[in-house]
């Protein structure tokens, strides 16, 4: 039952709305369709340079005969399936069976952010997620390496490198953190030399560096805001994070992971505390939301120190905490916020395992199962608001929208305006590109604007920034314009 919940949550957008979450999904499905049609795979664009998700869609479609939209169910399914290696990891870290189930649930029900917005999307990062968890699990088996282990590491590592840059960066840092802790432990005589992990880290470094460096050179313009200085800052934060977990005892040690706890506070500040300068106004945090965060924080962080004496978890902590800390230090604008969200996907795993250790401690007490069950149910309730909002938000698509757009053919050469949602969906459904977003009053003669239901109910997405509806299509202008198409989910205005 627990695994069915973890499988179900990522599939919610598809089950409830009939379409994957977020616009990137359409890009990848479009690419997959193109590859299936042409039989060739290009490496021209950003979304092609990390081809794992595209390969997955192409492979499944060609194998099963399903459409790419149907094949896309696989990605959220795989994210859900990452609960299995996570369970295995927790068992390897020493958690009993019941406690080892808690992390998988925690990941799905984390009130820190709406997990469904990540897991329910068909993106490079989502497709790489289960590989990241799998790699962590494999790393934990590195004490007694075998040929099979090395092959698994190589395959998973290679898949991760081709999967997503950020996920592979987290893996890269984690592997080296693990190797460094192992080296230090070997120097102290606590463990044998960590040859396997050292080899794994070194082997991973080569494709990771080469592939990402090559992509950076090719797509340089895509990363204009990241500089070498930022990488050095990230390394500095990572070193600091690694060091704070080095000692076994003391005020700065794995027993007192202050930095990991601070990362939680920074996450909350970043999401709800106005840490970032963003176009979309953020509602001030309420007492109830603070309560939800507090429960999640206590549940996940209380037991974390108990698990940090295990090398793999300590290494994962060093890397993921540094990614969370790096996000606000990089900058306090929208790209920094995006970095924070990305970091939370992997930091969430750390919190989840910490929750497992907390649950393990509670379950040893009388009535512990009741407390753990109540906490998890509370977390489900706490995360439900965010999930529901997300499923009905600007990032979510509906089957009706997709089918309606598919059913409309646009004249060639027509100028079409719409927000980011439309810009992503249109190329997939209609093979046409939107010309951006313009206020209605500035619409050119003969051009049209697409409005989806979330647009007239909630507003528009310009890039990843929210724009109020009144700024683009105020009610009076909307009523005064001609309607080429009008339905419950789509309006085309001229």
């Amino acid at each position: 039952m627990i695994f069915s919940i973890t499988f179900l949550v990522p599939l919610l957008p598809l089950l409830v709305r009939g379409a994957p979450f977020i616009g990137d999904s359409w890009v990848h499905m479009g690419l997959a369709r193109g590859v299936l049609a042409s039989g060739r795979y290009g490496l021209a664009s950003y979304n092609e340079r990390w081809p794992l998700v595209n390969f997955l869609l192409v492979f499944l479609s060609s194998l099963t005969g399903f459409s790419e939209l149907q094949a896309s169910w696989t990605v959220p399914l795989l994210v859900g399936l990452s609960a299995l290696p996570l369970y295995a990891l927790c068992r390897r870290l020493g958690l009993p069976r019941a406690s080892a189930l808690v992390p998988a649930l925690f990941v799905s029900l984390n009130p820190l952010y709406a997990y469904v917005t990540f897991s329910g999307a068909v993106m490079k990062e989502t497709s790489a997620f289960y590989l990241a968890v799998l790699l962590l699990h494999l790393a934990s088996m590195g004490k007694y390496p075998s040929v099979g282990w090395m092959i698994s590491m190589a395959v998973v590592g290679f898949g991760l490198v081709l999967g997503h840059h950020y996920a592979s960066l987290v893996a890269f840092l984690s592997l080296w953190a693990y190797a460094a802790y192992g080296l230090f432990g070997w120097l102290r005589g606590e463990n044998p030399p960590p040859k396997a992990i050292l080899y794994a880290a070194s082997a991973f470094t080569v494709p990771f560096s080469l592939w990402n460096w090559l992509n950076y050179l090719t797509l340089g313009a895509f990363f204009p805001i990241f500089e070498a200085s930022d990488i050095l800052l990230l390394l500095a934060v990572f070193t600091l994070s690694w060091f704070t977990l080095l000692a076994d005892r003391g005020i700065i040690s794995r027993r007192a992971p202050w930095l990991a706890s601070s990362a939680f506070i920074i996450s909350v500040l970043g999401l709800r505390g106005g840490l970032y300068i963003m176009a979309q106004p953020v509602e001030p945090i309420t007492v109830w939301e603070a309560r939800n965060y507090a429960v999640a924080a206590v549940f996940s962080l209380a037991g974390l120190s108990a698990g940090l004496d295990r090398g793999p978890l300590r290494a994962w902590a060093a890397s993921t905490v540094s990614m969370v800390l790096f996000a606000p230090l990089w900058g306090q604008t929208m790209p920094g916020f995006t970095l924070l969200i990305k970091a939370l996907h992997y930091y969430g795993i750390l919190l989840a395992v910490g929750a497992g250790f907390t649950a393990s401690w509670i379950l040893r007490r009388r009535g512990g199962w009741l407390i753990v069950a109540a906490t998890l149910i509370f977390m489900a309730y706490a995360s439900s608001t965010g999930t529901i909002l997300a499923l009905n938000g600007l990032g979510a698509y509906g089957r009706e929208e997709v089918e309606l757009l598919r059913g409309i053919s646009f004249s060639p050469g027509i100028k079409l305006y719409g927000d980011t949602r439309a810009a992503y969906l249109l190329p997939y459904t209609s093979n046409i590109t939107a010309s951006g977003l313009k206020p209605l009053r500035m619409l050119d003669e003969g051009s049209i604007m697409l409005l989806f239901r979330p647009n007239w109910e909630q507003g528009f997405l310009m890039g990843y920034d929210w724009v109020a509806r009144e700024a683009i299509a105020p009610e009076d202008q909307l009523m005064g314009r001609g309607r080429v198409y009008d339905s419950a989910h789509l309006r085309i205005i001229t």
Partner: protein
Amino acid sequence: MSLTASILSIASRGELKVGFMILTISLFTGLVVAVEAMAQSYARESAALREISRMAEVKVDTSPMGGAVRVYASTLDLEGRTLMILASEDPGSLINLEGARVEGGLPGDGELLVGLGLRTLAGEGVLKIMGLPLRVSGYISSPAHLASSIITTPETLRKIGLEATTLYYAKAPAGAEGVPMAEAPSSSSLVGAVTGEALSTLSILGHILTAMLAVTCAVQGYNSSQEGRRAFRVYSSLGASRRMMACSLIILSLTLSLAGVTLGYALGLAGSAIISSTLSLALGLPYVKPLAGVELLRWLGTSYALSSTALSIGLLKGYRVDGV
């Protein structure tokens, strides 16, 4: 296990007071890194500020400049008022550079162009200066700062008999080098001046810190050797030669310095970023992200070289003094 590995192993267990050494090196290195990273970031931010500030259009200097108008400036007190007298061979160019508006004509020899504020002094179109009656050829109606000024020719100024300061007025060409006496608008040079002040401070701080790092490392190394003399005696009695011990100690100091400098780099860069971010949130100041560039790597290299050398000297000195 080799001698070096053995010593490293002892050190990693906290013997030989290495934790203390690493911490000291890292603290000082962190300070150096913080100073230099913020300095580089500040220099870049200021350069951006300089670009968006207005570039100078007019420059004034005491040294000749290409295309400059030479002006002789002097002051005198007349009827309780301080007046500025400017004499130029080309009063027309001076008027243009000042963007002045004139009613009347430009002054010739024996004539004056008078600021409007001095109109009441000029009776019947004649102004007496130092007993010399001079015809008023016109009045300067703007800008306001010329209201108490008189423009004339150098010959007239000579006749009046005032000592003058020679200045050169010119249009400021884009990208011109050099620091003139004044330029207008001066916002660009102001940004440059303030930047220079701050960078100078930060640079001196960095040098002081590096010097302190060397001294502290030498002392720490010496103390550490003293602390570990028992262990060194054991190694000696097991057959380790002085040369082997010395090599091992040097490798130890290189390793400790590397660890210290790495940690210091992390502390300095991350620490200054954290504090800058906190200041930004708490006090509404702009967030200045520390910049880690080539210059910083040079400082890190210097810190590493100094600390490892000083540590080696200290360790070897302490080892030798003990007479083992």
